[in-house]
């Protein structure tokens, strides 16, 4: 179940030609990892550790999305598109 969610998130990252969609894929993958943390914390001696880990993953994901969207807006203003295939200025 969690493995399927992780795989779908990976596919979204690889497939989409849009930076925002790639951010969504990252969110899906983080969610899959969180499921595992919480599910296995149920069978731990002290179930708080896994849940606290999941909470911190959520916080880091929130800050990551905020910074990512700010950078995407800047890129959009500068290059007029957010397609990672067309952002090839550093290639030559």
């Amino acid at each position, binding site marked *: *179940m969690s*493995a*399927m*969610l*992780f*795989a*779908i998130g*990976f*596919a*979204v990252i*690889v*497939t*989409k*030609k*849009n930076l*925002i*969609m790639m*951010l*969504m*894929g990252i*969110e*899906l993958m983080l*969610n899959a990892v*969180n*499921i595992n943390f*919480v*599910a*296995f*914390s*149920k*069978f*731990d001696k*002290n*179930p*708080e550790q896994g*849940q*606290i880990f*999941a*909470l*911190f993953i*959520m*916080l*880091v*994901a*929130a*800050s990551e*999305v*905020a*910074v990512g*969207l*700010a950078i*995407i*807006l*800047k890129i*959009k203003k500068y290059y*007029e*598109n*957010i*397609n990672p*295939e067309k952002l090839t200025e550093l290639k030559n």
Partner: protein
Amino acid sequence: MEIVLRELQNGNVAFGIFCLIAVIGAVYVLFSKNVLYASYGLLVSFLGVAGIFVFAGGEFVSAAQIMIYIGGILILLIFGIMLSSNKKAGKGKLNIENMNKVFSLTITVSLSLLLSLLVLTSKFNTKSFKPQQHIKNLGYNLMTDSVLVLEITGVLLLMALIGATYIAKKDE
């Protein structure tokens, strides 16, 4: 997987429904043609994951999932979609193009099968412990053992948000 099977054997239909909701939302994100609709699919998936958290004994984590992901991250994403959509493209401005679909689908299916195989073949020690007062213990643990991590994450979040607003502000 073992947990999933056990819950399903106990006749827990709601758990299966939540699993299905999460996976269907994620698949919709993968196959939808519109960025905005994809974000709605992401919302459905997050709700399903929140339901799974409840079954895994993390009530507080489930509430935090709904508040942080659906209330924070998804709103940010939708704002980003609206602000970054290309006005010149006209009607199809929210459409998304895909690339190397076959390659990514192959990788996805193989990765999914590999992980499922690993999970099914490995034995986990999943004997149940007696139920505890989860949220109370969570609060105690958060304020005693992991208080340093808590503070560091708070500072990180503050820095990230200030940095994001600074990056996104209009140049003079």
